[in-house]
């Protein structure tokens, strides 16, 4: 059986809902961050770096390193380790700076 932090602290979260990740549903618990929901679903990377195109996901998990950026509800560069995975949230894998549409 999988051991989770929720189990270790004896949490009794409310019923799970879903967020949308690149067009597919990912389960999330009330209060869970987007990064935690993705991790729990086995997703480790949701951004590629600007120069080398390398995969990135959570590093510090506490909002300090900006590694965990993704496009959330259409807004690029959001720290998924800080944002709650609320019902209806749409997360998109971010390519580089995520602002290619602005380039001139």
């Amino acid at each position, binding site marked *: 059986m999988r051991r989770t932090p929720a189990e270790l602290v004896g949490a009794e979260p409310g019923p799970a809902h879903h967020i949308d990740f690149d067009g597919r549903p990912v389960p999330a618990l009330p209060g869970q961050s987007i990064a935690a929901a993705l991790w729990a679903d086995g997703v480790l990377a949701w951004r590629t770096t600007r120069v080398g195109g390398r995969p990135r996901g959570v590093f510090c998990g506490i909002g300090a390193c900006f590694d965990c950026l993704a496009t959330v509800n259409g807004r690029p560069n959001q720290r998924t380790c800080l944002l709650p995975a609320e019902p209806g949230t749409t997360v998109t894998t971010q390519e580089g700076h995520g*602002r290619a549409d*602005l380039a001139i």
Partner: protein
Amino acid sequence: MLKTEPPLDVVVVGAGVVGAACAYYAARAGLAVTVVDRGPVAGGTTGAGEGNLLVSDKEPGPELDLALLSLRLWRELADDLGAAMEYEPKGGVVVSSTPAGQEALRAFAAQQAAVGVVAEEIPAERLQELEPHLSPRMAGGFHYPQDAQVQPALAAAHLLREARRLGAKLITGETVRAVRRRPDGAVLGVETDRRRLDAPAVVNAAGTWGGELAGLAGVHLPVLPRRGFVLVTEPLPRIIRHKVYAADYVADVASGSAGLQTSAVIEGTPGGPVLIGASRERVGFDRTLSQEALHRLAAQAAELFPVLADVTVMRVYRGFRPYLPDHLPAIGADPRVPGLYHACGHEGAGIGLAPATGLLIAEQLTGKQPELDLVPFRADRFPAA
């Protein structure tokens, strides 16, 4: 025990961009140079500003002469070091939001043209060709192709690396505590907290702290701090091509007021973030974050480039420009102390003016006639308090 080092031709105090340029040109002229800084390379104002190399904001006079010489030298330096220093000859665009502002820019550009500044008037309808994201509400602007940009910390580091390749020495983490002088007043060298450096010439490139160093040599030089904040956005693709600023900037730079002034200068960087700077205010070395300054810079930037309203500012930094009461730097031999040379007080233009400063100092050190008249920059022009 203080260590004693072999004799040198010159000690440069300060490893900011100005000290680095002095060391580079002095070493290139064949002098034995040691640079000493109490912190790391570019740990002072050089690491806390922006790298605009501007002629567009300067009216005809000694500072513009210095800027024109310096921009020529930056171009030469860029042949070998351009990529390493992130040198970008991108040009500047100054815009005005009213016809009266455009008229003022026109008069300013006409004066500048007389001394060799190139500026082309851009009517409102052509501004978007230069800057597609610029607000369509502008009355017009001027394009200054000579304006350029470097990354200041990289520029200082690479100038010092070149100087070392030419034989210069660099000592970091040692504070100059005394300027040693002979009984007749002439300079003998400096003393740091670890060693004695003997040299018949000392260059004061201590930036905002240049007044203190002058004090160690027994002379008055009223260098004071003028605080500035810079906003750094999240990394973006290239959305701004030139350095873009509003016409009010020129008036702010020249202003004698102590109060907060903001007129955003906006530029992209090779690293991705857009820099929005800078405010100006005289509050001593107070490092407190000024929400008012940040708010005004952000609002002005969004007014010029509406696209920035949706972009996140990731961080903010501040620095203290070294200014002298008449807004000109102190450059050259101090007539009061034989062997003491000043290269400080460049206020908000020290990056731009660094190579010219270094070259002029090296020319004086080697007994050549300096390329520009140094009288307006003499350090003894301020009466002692």
